[in-house]
């Protein structure tokens, strides 16, 4: 009984996280401005990391934790690089 509840709530949570990634993807594609795109790309990385964590809960395997950590680190570095680029790269000085 409780196992079924856990299964269904993890499934629902994964659906919600995928929907969240869809919302962010819409903002990344539509903009309106470059800073909105970078903000939502960063948030997409975080949501993808959470999705990997829920997959880990669902499968009961600890290996997904490392994947989540790698996504978090790579997302952080790429968001920093993009934010720096916005400050120096695009605006004509």
């Amino acid at each position: 009984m409780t196992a079924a509840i856990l299964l269904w709530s993890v499934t629902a949570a994964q659906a919600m996280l995928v929907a969240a990634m869809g919302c962010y993807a819409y903002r990344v594609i539509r903009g309106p401005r470059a800073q909105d795109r970078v903000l939502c790309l960063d948030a997409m990385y975080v949501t993808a990391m959470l999705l990997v964590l829920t997959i880990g809960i669902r499968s009961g395997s600890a290996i997904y934790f490392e994947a989540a950590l790698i996504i978090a680190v790579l997302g952080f570095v790429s968001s920093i690089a993009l934010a720096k680029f916005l400050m120096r790269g695009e605006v004509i000085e």
Partner: protein
Amino acid sequence: MTHAENLPAWASLLTAFLVLLGSGLTLLGAIGTLRFRRFFERVHAPTLGTSWGTGAIALASIVCFSALGSRPVVHELLIGVFMIVTTPVTLMLLARAALYRDRTEGNREAPPRSLLRRTHGG
């Protein structure tokens, strides 16, 4: 999902609640980025996902794996600490970049530099 049968009832209910809470907050934050009209309002929305969205799902993972094994598993705390330390760096850099772009374009909604001067008695 065969391991779920091995979980005690309280652990699976707690995990289910925390997972739903975290993903619900993350989804609300994502909807917020669609609803708000200006960039500086949108900055606030994803922090729902990076604060208690991440916290709740990491806690759920801790509860689930600690109940499955005999000893407490706490390495998910590292993800929480990592998010707390890195989110400010990203958001501060983005806010400064947005401010810089607004000012060079002469956007009237950008806060003037004079706000940063200390007023008397302040």
